[in-house]
């Protein structure tokens, strides 16, 4: 029996109005993604990968087409509605880590949970879980450190712990190893896939790194805002 669809993208188009006229960066893109699957979106810079990720995660509005995420049609939701969907179902890992500089590692991890509960969450329980996640990514001793006191790899691991704290149905990663050295990147990749499998999360990975992409079950290749190939990881070379 096949897994239910967690992400459904239909005829998705994004056009920006520029001084030189309309600029379409995404042309009628359509695909489905089953729950628990892992998808890599690859392509050269400017091909529309990040735009696609933004639209899929409800971070932006499409010019036309629809995105259905975890059974919710994002087009029909206002900004706050999409924020709720993100908080309930989505985790993010950014290329440049994007931790909140004024919060400690532990507090950064707690943000999605606190947002969900309006701050009234049973702090002991969630704090315990956050500490466990930080320990899982190897930062059990660095809970009270601020981002500025952590290395790039450590910051990205905090971001990963934050992405998993609210048990997301889908994890969007934008070049998660783009700012990391080889060894650190390798550790990070193992963590992403390890947690992904462990928690049954769907993974959408935007990357230039074909080696990384091949670890996913499915790869969509992008060029000039359109899908040029969609297949299993091993088939994309």
């Amino acid at each position, binding site marked *: 029996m096949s897994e239910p669809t967690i992400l459904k993208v239909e005829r998705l188009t994004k056009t920006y109005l520029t001084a030189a006229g309309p600029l379409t960066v995404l042309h009628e893109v359509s695909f489905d993604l089953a729950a628990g699957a892992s998808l890599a979106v690859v392509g050269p810079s400017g091909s529309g990968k990040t735009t696609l990720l933004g639209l899929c995660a409800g971070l932006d509005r499409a010019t036309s087409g629809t995105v259905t995420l975890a059974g919710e049609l994002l087009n029909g939701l206002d900004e706050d509605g999409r924020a709720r969907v993100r*908080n309930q179902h989505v985790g993010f890992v950014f290329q440049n880590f*994007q931790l909140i500089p*004024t919060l400690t590692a532990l507090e950064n991890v707690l943000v999605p949970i606190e*947002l969900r509960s309006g701050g009234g969450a049973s702090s002991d329980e969630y704090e315990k879980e956050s500490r466990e996640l930080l320990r899982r990514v190897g930062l059990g001793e660095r809970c009270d450190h601020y981002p500025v006191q952590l290395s790039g790899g450590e910051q990205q691991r905090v971001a990963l712990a934050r992405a998993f704290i609210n048990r997301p149905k889908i994890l969007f990663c934008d070049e998660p190893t783009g700012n990391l050295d080889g060894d650190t990147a390798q550790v990070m990749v193992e963590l992403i896939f390890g947690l992904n499998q462990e928690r049954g999360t769907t993974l959408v990975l935007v990357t230039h790194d074909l080696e990384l992409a091949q670890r996913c079950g499915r790869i969509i290749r992008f060029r000039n805002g359109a899908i040029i190939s969609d297949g299993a990881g091993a088939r994309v070379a």
Partner: protein
Amino acid sequence: MSFVLKMAWRDSRASRRRLLLLSLSVVFGIGALIAIGSVSANLRRAIDGQANSLLGADLVITGTIPTSPEWQQSLAVLGGEVARERIFPAQVAAGGVARRVQMRALEGNFPFYGEFIAAPADAPARLRQGGNVIILSDALLEQLHVRLGDTVKVGNGQEDFTVIGQMKAFPGELAGFTVHPPLAFIPFSALSTKVGSAANRVNVRLPAGSDSEAIVKGLKAEFSDDRLVFATAEERRKNMANALTGFDAFFRLVGFVALFLGAIGVASVVHVYVRQKITTVAILRCLGASARQTFAIYLLQGLALGLFGSVVGAGIGLAAQWLLPRMLQDLIPFQIDFFISWPAVASGMISGLVICLLFTLLPLLAVRRVPPLAAFRSALAERAGAAFDPWRVVIAILIPAAVAGFAIWQTKNVKFGIGYAITLGVGFGILTATAQLVSWAAQRWFPRRLPYVVRQGVANLYRPNNRTVLLLLSIGLGAFLMIALYLARTELLRQIQGPEGGATPNLIFARIDEDQMEPLAKIAAAQGAPIVQQTAFVRMNLVSVNGNPPGRWWRLPNGKPRDLTASYRDHLLQGETVREGKFVPRAEPGAAVVPIALSASLPRPRVIDPNKPMGREDSASILHVGDILDWDVQGIPMRTRITAVLGATGRFQLGTERFDVLFPDGAINGAPKFYLAGAHAATAAIALNVQQAVFAAFPRIQVVDVSVIVEAITRIFGKIGFVIGFMASFIVATGVIMLVSAVLTGRFQRIRETVLLRTLGASHRQLIQIQMVEYAILGILASLVGAILAVGGNALLAHFVFKIPPSAPPLLLLGATASVTAVTLVTGWFANRGVTDHPPLVVLRQET
């Protein structure tokens, strides 16, 4: 704790120092408002409680006091206590020294309220017992060289009075601040028939619960034919309360300027703060925070800081409230008890919070528009909040509305309130436009051949994240307000002292006969006090107006014709204005009709129907430019035509002669005349010597030593000026905080760039020089624009309010410009310390 509260607290951790600046920006403004409001409340309570001690009685009736049995009966019916009094100018002499005094002959237990304090303490009681005894003011005892027990001669009758006391305090009189000649007190019963033994004042203590206003109304109706002036403690209380309202509103508006300036600082700090928080906001949005939640986080921070600023401001305000009455003690004729006026504290804090909130909202609105995608794309973060936002328009309208509303609330004058908001807006607009012009000019005429540090400094004026608008606004507005306040104070003092400065007459000689003028001038000059002003007067009678005899208006109440005083000159004095027609300076020899100018001091009668009483309802003026007036100039007929009406100058200058009609030079120069002359004595000793010499030679010439009055007025204005300066210090303090805030804000904006330059090998000296070039340009420009605005504002004030030619002392302006520039440079240098003398990575870690 809610997420918003928790996040607001956590997020503020790294920025508390910067956010503290935000708080400090408004503390002095709020402090000023609370100080003024509380002092005003203290004064109001003091006025309410002590109004009767200002008069010394509940009811004071002044004028030609009737002696009829009806009058006595009416006073008796009041049921209170009555004390007669006579106040008259008199001459007191001892040992060949004579001084003109204000004599008060007291009867009964007056003053009923307040204290008549003298040394020895029983002197007022001895005075009440009667006899030829006198109590003199401190100044008189010193000037006449007399002691207790000595004898002085009073009036032309030269009656002997024994000095029994030295006056220390009398209700309504301020030690050292009287603007009339020195005071002397004698018993009412000691009045001689030569002076006149009739009272010209009656003081009444009314039974408790009496309605003084109703009593006055009754007396006015009963004795309407008598020219009586009634003053009640209640009326005095109302007048003082009204005066206080004006005083209070003026200082509150000054305080509000400090708040406004601080609020601009708040807006600038919040603007930079929000720019730095865009990524955090975008991350929070990605993680599921709603726009409302993220906006609430920063709004809460702003409100908390505004509240903190209000509390600190309230503390500063209450401290100032404690100080202000001590500074004003000599000016206030009653005891002020310190109490905290909570309504004033609340109103100051609320005003501060509202203004702080509005100015915080303006840059904060951008937070609502931060797209979550900005976490991925830095270009989106740069553009966040740039799109049109209707709420920004609403806030932009609410800010001037709040400013105008505050001014209207304080002054109860809609026009003034709107004008106040427009003035602030114009100053703001001019400085913003100047800043943009400077940015544009720096780019347009970039000094490519100058050294690197200069080029960098100039480039800082227009590059992204430049502080040109912010610094020009903060320094410029601060400089404008401070210089404007200083110039206004200078104008006030000039108005009092006269434009002649040191040559202002301070000894006025009156009733000088024609043949006495020359010897008087010689005596005065010999004593070292030359005559600096001398005016001849001619008395004359009006015979006809356009061929008709003048009507009833021309006659005094006793039926006698009015005696007019004329003078002649070929020029107008400084400050005199021609309201209608044209002033003709010289008379043509042998002309049949002489052109004359009516002075504003001549009441222009407005009655055409002789059967109707004079009143405001009769508005037809009888005298116009072009009318022919026939005069009897001491027996010689003269025909004249009104060619001009001289407007009231509104200017108060001691020793300026008053005349009714001004003739051109050459028309009445030969007529019998008398003189009024003014001499300038450089010291009190010279003034005393001149008075003695003139008294010895011409006992009938009246001498008024106005130096005491000039000194008293100067002292009063000095005190007021000091208080204005004290209030201005709130603006200065806010200006300095704004400057530090602007520099520090710039430091946060520029930190990466400075570190990069440092990394590329820029020396500490070079980095400092780059910053100093930028601050020097901004400091000079801002202070210059501020000074120009202040001179403009002051010119309007001088022209429309003080009616004197405006002044703009170049040295003062140069000094102010140099000081403001120096303060800018020093502040800039201090605020940037640490960035240039620490390793780049350490700085980056600390500052980001």
